[in-house]
């Protein structure tokens, strides 16, 4: 289920109007255009492909959260269109359909838990979709299994009695219970310790392996480099770069300018190359950098 952004611009001062929504056309809004600094997104044009692992990076206020809220019609473009499966989601019916197919997990999702028991929290979405109790039950079982929580242990407990990491798993399960085909995660491992980060990123990789399209917003360049097929870098609401990790992280200077960086191993490789060491191009992770440096060393001492 591809999601296509077609020349999308968005301003919080000039959101899409009801009238536009009714007509289902995406003509530019009438009246004076918003001032240039008011654009939260400007000329966003790309297509999220089926089965992709897609990363979004950018400094605070670069439009990352605004962009992901366009993927399932929580926000509508001021200019341009968002097509989910070829259908403009400005249309109310299409937006509703998109919402059941594109699961959004916000930052610190555990803050949004609300029900008296874990079961009710996870069941909220499926129940809202009008599923029969049996089907809801199956959804909850499956979703809790997907996030590696034991159904019998947690289902009757209050989510607020659980640890922070478990709460976040419950929040993930609430979105997975809707059986989305695209999962959009805003900073899914923020605030977790390194071991918990690894566990959660492992879970997310697992969802992707099972066929979900995954979009992940992150400040962690190491994670993005390791996990993503493509990375979109935003700068003040505009697309600064879009490409494979290798392409994106070859521009260390430009990334630094927008307050980001490159993965630690890449940074070290670039810096060693700058100091005159004979390292090849391409993307480096810790193991590859160690291999290359060891080869240089052993060649030198031979």
């Amino acid at each position: 289920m591809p999601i296509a952004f077609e020349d999308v611009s968005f301003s919080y001062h000039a959101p899409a109007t009801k009238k536009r929504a009714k007509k289902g056309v995406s003509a530019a809004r009438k009246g004076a255009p918003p001032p240039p600094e008011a654009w939260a997104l400007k000329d966003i044009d790309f297509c999220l492909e089926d089965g992709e692992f897609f990363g979004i990076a950018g400094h605070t206020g670069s439009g990352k959260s605004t962009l992901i809220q366009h993927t399932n019609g929580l926000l509508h473009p001021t200019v341009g269109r968002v097509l989910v499966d070829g259908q403009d989601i400005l249309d109310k019916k299409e937006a509703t359909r998109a919402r059941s197919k594109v699961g959004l997990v916000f930052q610190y999702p555990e803050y949004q838990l609300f029900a008296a028991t874990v079961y009710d929290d996870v069941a909220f979405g499926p129940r809202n979709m009008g599923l029969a109790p049996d089907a809801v039950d199956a959804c909850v079982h499956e979703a809790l299994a997907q996030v590696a929580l034991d159904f019998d242990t947690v289902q009757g407990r209050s989510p607020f009695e659980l640890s922070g990491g478990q709460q976040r798993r419950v929040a993930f399960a609430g979105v997975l219970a809707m059986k989305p085909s695209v999962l959009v995660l805003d900073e899914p491992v923020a605030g977790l310790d390194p071991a918990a980060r690894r566990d959660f990123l492992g879970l997310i990789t697992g969802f992707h392996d099972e066929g979900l399209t995954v979009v992940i917003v992150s400040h962690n360049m190491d994670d993005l480099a390791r996990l993503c097929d493509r990375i979109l870098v935003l700068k003040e609401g505009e697309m600064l770069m879009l490409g494979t990790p290798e392409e994106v992280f070859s521009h260390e200077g430009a990334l630094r300018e927008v307050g980001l960086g490159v993965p630690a191993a890449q940074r070290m490789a670039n810096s060693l190359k700058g100091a005159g060491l004979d390292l090849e191009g391409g993307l480096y992770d810790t193991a590859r950098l160690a291999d290359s440096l060891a080869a240089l060393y052993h060649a030198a001492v031979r």
Partner: protein
Amino acid sequence: MTAAATEDIHIDFEATGFTYDGEAFVLDGIDLVVEEGSFVCILGGNGSGKSTLAKHINALLLPDEGRVAVFGADTRDERSVYFIRSNAGMVFQNPDDQLVASLIENDVAFGPENLGVPTDKMRQRVTEALAQVGLQGFEKRETHALSGGQKQRVAIAGVLAMDPRILILDEASAMLDPRGRRGLLRVCCELNAQGMTIVMITHFMEEASLADRVVVLDAGRIALDGVPSKVLTQTEQLAGLNLQAPFACRLSGELQRRGVPVATHVSEDDLKEELCRLLSKT
């Protein structure tokens, strides 16, 4: 100045135990002395007791066992709490939870105003505090229009306006982007250079490498304690404590495993220098 304020020892945990529910001890026999002017980083996995420990420093939590003394004053002594809180300021994780006013100067002035500082002196303190965090001239700006990193710096300015001697940061950079994190760290280093005692709770190893002491907690106990070059280089122990050694240490380790004779470095610059020396002979 009270007599206690002349003590060199700022923070003194003696066999401190704490439990939220009367069963599980979140702090379990903490002995820790922090001296004036030091920059201490507290590390530990989720649930290791880091934040609980931090909240003991300014009497937000009181020990169930042992004692905590700040400037020689017992945190359980109600008469000392006011003195302790005005000298040990704390900044928390979420920038949006900590600002109380819509105008920056009002927000920074909130603390001193409550202390009854006269208006003239207060203005001066607000101006100074904003300068200390690199936000000169931001007095009349509105807090909601700031970035997360700027909001955290305003929160720090609010603490600095109280003229404290200890600044405690409880994962204050967790929600910031890399630039915001670097800015916050720079402010902490500058304040420390001016003599402020800094206690920083974090998950980020690169931040810990800048401290002059690192304390690692595990299940409410101190697992490791020492200078960064001693503690952060213990790659395997750290992994066992749900932490990850800084990148330079991990790369050093990978190189050693491949037969390259480098020392284990905490700083990337130091590792780079050694590699250049070693490899540029070709």
